C-alpha cells in the first residue's frame, strides 16, 4: 500500500499518537452514559407516537392508562402546553418559523411525532400504558416529496404559512446567463440525494431531575451541545436559564444529530409535572422515526465550459426537503445555505447563481449530520464534474485538474465569499491515484471487462469547511477555555467542547501540555456540565481543532505568561531571561535559578501566598480565561451577498475501486483511499480514526443507508434490520495518506476535520460505480446504490435500454 506522509517535524506532544485517556473507563464497561444513571425514586418515560404522517388530534383519553398500577402520570400535548411553551428556533436566517410543541397539541405532522407520554415506575409498565391511551385522529393527506409540497393546492403542514416553503433565498454573483451563452459548451445535470442520518449506536436519552422547592431542573443528557440545550430547554419550559443545568458525561456518538432538544423535552415536562426524576431512553425505532434526518435534496445544475475545459459559469437551483421542521426541532434547512456558499468546491468558478428552496413535508425533522450542507456541495459538484467530463469527452481527473484552485493561490477567496486557508487539490488527487495505482487499474479494468466483470474507479475532491460562525443560530462562532493550575502544579482545562468519541479529552490535553511544557497526563480536561464550564458551543462543524483548540492555546498562553511573571519576581530576574521548559521556569544561563510549576503554584496560593509572590497589579491566581473568535469571519454581506463564516478548510481526495456484480446488483468495495490534508495534526491516530469512521458512514449513505417513506408518509426503515448501516464485512480497510499544510488562521495551524469522510466518500463511490457500469452506458442518479436500485438499471441496459 502506498502510504505517503509529508508532515512537519514533531517536537512536543502535538503530532504524536498519544493514546486516549478516556479509553480505560470505556473499555472496562465503566463509561457513564446517560442510560447508566439510576437515581432514587426515578420514573421511566415512554412516548406514544402518531401512527399517521399527517393527522388532526380530535380526542385523547388517558384515563385507562392513568389508572394502571405503576403509572404515575400521563401527559398530552394540550396539557403540556398549559405549563410550557413551543420550541424556540435553533436557527433563524431568512426562514419562516413554525410553532411546534414537543408533544403535538392539535395535529401530528410526521409519523412518529409524540402525542402523549407516560411516566411509570419502570420501563416495562410505561410501555404497557401506551397501549391503553386512546387517540382519535382525523387523518389528513400527507406530502412526502419536494414536488408534492410545492404543488398547487398541496396539503399544508402549517396552514398559517399559506405555503410549505420554509426557506426561499438566492444569490447571483454576475450575469450568469450571459456567461453561459458565451461558453463553448453547456452541461446540464440533475443531482438528487436521498435521506439518511447518523444513527449513533447510543440513541438519545435524558434523566431529568426537578427540584420543585428550589425551582431547579438538572438534565443529564446525551448531547453535543449542553449550553445551547440549556438555553432551549429553559425557554421551552419557562424556567430561568440559570436554574437549569445540563450535564453530559460520556456520549455514545453524535455526528451532528444531538445538537438540540426535541424528544428530550418530554421527560423534562414529566419531571416538572410529577416533581420526580424521570428517565427517557430512546429506542432505535423512535430514533429512526423522529430524527433528526439529513440529506434529501435535488440539485439542478447548468454549467458552462470553455473549449479547453474550464468552468465558466454555474447556474443552479437547489431544493431541499426539511421534513416537518428544519428550524425549531432542529436546524436542517440551514444546511442548504451552507451548500449554496460552497457549491464551487475545489474549483475556480468566475460566475455563479443559485436559487434555494427549502420545503416542509410530513417526514421527520431534519438536522445536522456530519456535513451540514458541505456534504451537499461536495457531492453535487463532484458528481457534476464527472457528468460534465463524460459529456465533454474529457477524462474526469483531467477535467478536475484543469479547474482546481492552485496551491500558490491560498488563501483563496471564492466567488461566494469563503476564504480557503490552505490546500493542494492537484497533489491530493495525484496521491490518491498513486495509492490506487490508477494507470495499472485501467489495464486491469479493461481485462475484466473482456471477461464480463464490471470494475470501476472513482474520485471525489473534497472540501470540508470547518468551524462555522453562523449568526442568529445555535451554531455561533466563539469558544471559551479556562486553564487553571492548582497549588501542586496540576493543570485543569475547562472547555465548552464535549467529548463524543472524537477524543478531545486527550487532544486538548496534548495542546495545553505543549504550551505549559508538561505532559498530557498532567492536564485534566473538564467538559459537559453547564455549571462548571463557561458558556461554550460544543463540537459540531468540526470546530474542535479551530475554536476549541485555539481557545485552549490562548488560555494556556495567558497562564504561562503569569507563571513567568511570578517566577521572574521570585527569582529576581528580568522576565525576558526566564523561560518555561520541562514544566519549570528557568533563568537562562543560571542552572540553580529554576522553579517548577508546582513551586510557583504553592508560592502563589499558600506558601507563603500572593503578597510577596505575585508582582504588583497581578491577581493572586494561576488561572486564565480566553475566548477564541475567528479572524476571517465576515457576517455583513456585500452587494451580491458574499459572506465568510468558516475559518478552516481541510481538503482531500477520496478514491475507490469497486466491482459491481451484474447478476445481483451488489457493489463490492475493493479499495478505499483518502489522501487527506487538515493543517497541523494534533494526534495522527485520532485524525485517521475520524477519517475512517466518516468515510464508512459516507459509504453507507451511498450504498445502503436510507430513510425511505411511502406515499402515505410511513417510514419503511424503522430498525437496523432495514436501515442498512455498513458492517465490518461490508467495507475494506480505509487507507489514509496525509499532507500537512497549516492553516494561517489558527494559532497552531490546525484545522477541524471530523466530517470530511462522510462528505467526500459518497461521490467517490457513486463515480466509481458509474465508471464500472460505463460499458452499459448507465447514468446514475437516485441513491442509495442498493441492489434493488442497481439491478433494474443493469437489466434494462443489458436488454438494450
Amino acid at each position: 500500500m502506498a502510504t505517503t506522509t509529508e508532515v512537519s517535524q514533531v517536537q512536543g506532544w502535538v503530532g504524536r499518537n498519544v493514546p486516549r485517556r478516556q479509553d480505560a473507563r470505556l473499555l472496562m464497561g465503566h463509561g457513564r452514559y446517560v442510560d447508566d444513571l439510576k437515581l432514587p425514586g426515578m420514573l421511566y418515560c415512554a412516548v406514544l407516537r402518531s401512527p399517521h404522517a399527517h393527522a388532526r388530534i380530535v380526542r385523547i383519553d388517558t384515563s385507562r392508562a392513568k389508572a394502571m398500577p405503576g403509572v404515575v402520570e400521563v401527559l398530552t400535548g394540550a396539557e403540556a402546553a398549559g405549563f410550557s411553551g413551543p420550541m424556540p428556533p435553533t436557527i433563524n436566517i431568512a426562514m419562516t418559523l413554525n410553532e411546534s410543541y414537543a408533544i403535538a397539541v392539535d395535529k401530528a405532522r410526521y409519523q412518529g411525532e409524540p402525542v402523549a407520554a407516560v411516566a411509570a415506575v419502570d420501563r416495562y409498565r410505561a410501555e404497557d400504558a401506551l397501549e391503553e391511551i386512546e387517540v382519535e385522529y382525523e387523518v389528513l393527506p400527507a406530502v412526502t416529496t419536494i414536488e408534492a409540497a410545492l404543488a398547487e393546492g398541496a396539503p399544508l403542514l402549517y396552514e398559517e404559512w399559506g405555503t410549505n416553503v420554509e426557506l426561499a433565498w438566492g444569490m447571483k454573483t454576475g450575469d450568469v446567463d450571459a456567461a453561459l451563452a458565451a461558453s463553448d459548451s453547456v452541461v446540464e445535470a440533475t443531482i438528487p440525494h436521498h435521506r439518511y442520518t447518523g444513527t449513533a449506536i447510543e440513541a438519545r436519552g435524558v434523566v431529568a431531575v426537578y427540584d420543585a422547592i428550589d425551582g431547579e431542573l438538572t438534565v443529564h443528557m446525551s448531547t453535543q451541545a449542553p449550553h445551547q440545550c440549556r438555553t432551549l430547554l429553559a425557554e421551552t419550559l419557562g424556567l430561568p436559564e440559570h436554574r437549569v443545568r445540563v450535564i453530559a458525561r460520556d456520549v455514545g456518538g453524535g455526528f451532528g444529530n444531538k445538537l438540540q432538544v426535541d424528544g428530550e423535552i418530554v421527560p423534562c415536562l414529566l419531571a416538572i409535572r410529577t416533581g420526580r426524576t424521570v428517565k427517557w431512553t430512546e429506542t432505535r425505532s423512535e430514533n429512526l422515526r423522529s430524527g433528526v434526518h439529513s440529506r434529501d435534496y435535488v440539485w439542478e445544475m447548468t454549467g458552462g465550459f470553455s473549449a479547453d475545459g474550464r468552468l465558466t459559469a454555474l447556474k443552479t437551483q437547489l431544493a431541499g426537503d426539511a421534513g416537518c421542521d428544519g428550524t425549531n426541532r432542529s436546524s436542517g434547512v440551514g444546511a442548504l445555505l451552507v451548500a449554496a456558499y460552497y457549491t464551487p468546491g475545489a474549483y475556480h468558478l468566475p460566475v455563479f447563481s443559485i436559487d434555494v428552496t427549502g420545503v416542509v413535508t410530513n417526514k421527520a425533522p431534519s438536522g445536522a449530520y456530519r456535513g451540514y450542507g458541505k456534504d451537499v456541495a461536495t457531492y453535487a459538484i463532484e458528481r457534476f464534474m464527472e457528468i460534465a467530463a463524460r459529456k465533454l469527452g474529457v477524462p474526469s481527473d483531467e477535467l478536475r485538474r484543469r479547474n482546481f484552485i492552485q496551491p500558490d493561490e491560498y488563501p483563496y477567496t471564492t466567488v461566494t465569499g469563503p476564504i480557503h486557508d490552505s490546500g493542494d487539490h492537484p497533489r491530493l488527487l495525484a496521491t490518491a491515484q498513486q495509492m490506487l495505482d490508477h494507470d495499472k487499474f485501467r489495464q486491469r479494468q479493461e481485462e475484466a471487462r473482456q471477461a464480463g466483470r464490471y470494475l470501476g474507479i472513482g474520485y471525489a475532491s473534497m472540501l470540508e469547511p470547518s468551524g462555522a460562525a453562523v449568526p442568529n443560530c445555535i451554531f455561533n462562532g466563539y469558544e471559551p477555555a479556562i486553564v487553571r493550575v492548582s497549588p501542586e502544579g496540576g493543570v485543569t482545562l475547562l472547555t465548552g467542547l464535549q467529548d463524543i468519541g472524537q477524543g478531545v479529552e486527550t487532544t486538548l490535553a496534548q495542546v495545553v501540555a505543549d504550551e505549559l511544557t508538561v505532559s498530557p497526563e498532567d492536564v485534566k480536561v473538564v467538559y459537559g456540565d453547564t455549571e462548571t464550564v463557561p458558556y461554550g458551543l460544543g463540537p459540531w462543524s468540526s470546530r474542535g481543532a479551530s475554536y476549541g483548540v485555539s481557545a485552549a492555546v490562548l488560555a494556556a498562553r495567558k497562564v504561562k505568561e503569569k507563571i513567568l511573571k511570578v517566577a521572574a519576581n521570585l527569582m529576581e530576574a528580568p522576565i525576558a531571561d526566564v523561560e518555561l521548559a520541562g514544566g519549570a521556569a528557568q533563568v537562562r544561563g543560571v542552572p540553580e535559578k529554576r522553579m517548577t510549576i508546582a513551586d510557583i503554584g504553592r508560592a502563589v496560593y499558600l506558601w507563603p501566598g500572593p503578597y510577596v509572590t505575585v508582582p504588583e497589579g497581578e491577581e493572586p491566581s494561576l488561572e486564565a480565561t480566553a475566548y477564541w473568535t475567528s479572524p476571517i469571519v465576515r457576517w455583513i454581506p456585500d452587494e451580491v451577498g458574499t459572506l465568510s463564516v468558516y475559518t478552516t478548510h481541510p481538503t482531500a481526495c477520496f478514491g475507490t475501486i469497486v466491482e459491481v456484480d451484474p447478476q445481483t446488483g451488489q457493489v463490492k468495495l475493493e479499495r478505499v483511499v483518502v489522501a487527506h490534508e487538515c493543517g497541523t495534526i494534533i494526534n495522527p491516530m485520532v485524525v485517521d480514526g475520524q477519517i475512517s469512521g466518516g468515510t464508512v458512514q459516507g459509504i453507507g449513505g451511498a450504498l445502503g443507508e436510507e430513510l425511505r417513506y411511502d406515499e402515505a408518509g410511513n417510514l419503511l426503515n424503522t430498525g437496523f434490520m432495514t436501515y442498512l448501516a455498513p458492517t465490518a464485512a461490508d467495507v475494506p480497510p480505509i487507507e489514509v495518506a496525509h499532507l500537512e499544510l497549516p492553516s494561517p488562521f489558527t494559532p497552531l495551524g490546525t484545522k477541524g476535520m471530523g466530517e470530511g469522510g462522510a462528505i467526500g466518500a459518497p461521490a467517490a463511490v457513486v463515480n466509481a460505480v458509474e465508471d464500472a457500469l460505463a460499458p452499459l452506458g448507465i447514468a446514475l442518479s437516485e441513491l442509495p446504490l442498493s441492489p434493488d436500485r442497481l439491478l433494474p438499471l443493469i437489466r434494462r441496459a443489458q436488454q438494450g435500454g
Partner: protein
Amino acid sequence: MRIAMSINGTDHEVDVDARVLLADLLRDDLGLTGTHLGCEDGKCGACTVLVDGQATKSCMVFAVQADGSAVETVEGLATGTTLHPIQAAFHEAHALQCGFCTPGILMATKAMLAGGEELTDARVRTALAGNLCRCTGYTNIVKAVLEAAEALGREPTDAGKAAAKATRTEPVGATAGQ
C-alpha cells in the same frame, strides 16, 4: 421467577419477571451497565455478552433463559484496573471512539478468539458482522483484534499479519509515538 446464574464468576440468585430481558437484568437489577443497548432487534450487537462461552445478544434473550448459566460481561474482562489483552489492543490501536458499541465488540472478540479458526482480515470482519460501530469505520477494530490474537498467543496466518500491517497507517513524523 427465581433464577440463579454465575456472572463474571460470582454466583447470583435473583427474582425476575418472566418478560425481563437479560440485558435489563444485568443493567437495571445488577448495575452492570457496561452492557449497552443500541437497538431492539439484535442487529447492533452492543449488548453482546457471553453465555456459557457463547457470544449472545442479551437484548434477544430473557433473563430466565440464562437460568443456570455462566454469564460473562465486559466488566469481567479486566483484572482490577489492568486491561485484558483484548482491551489493551483496542486501546493501543485506537479501536474505539465513543465507546458505546465497544463492550459488545470486546465480548464478540473474546468468543471469536476462543474459537480455533485461522484469523484473516476477512474472517475477523465476518465474525464481527453482528456488531455495528458508527464511529471507527472498523479499520482499527480489525487491526486490534488481530493484534490481540497475537498477544494471546493465537498466531495469525500470514494473511492475517499482512492485513494487520496493511491497515496500519504510518505515524506522522519521524519521532511520532510515545
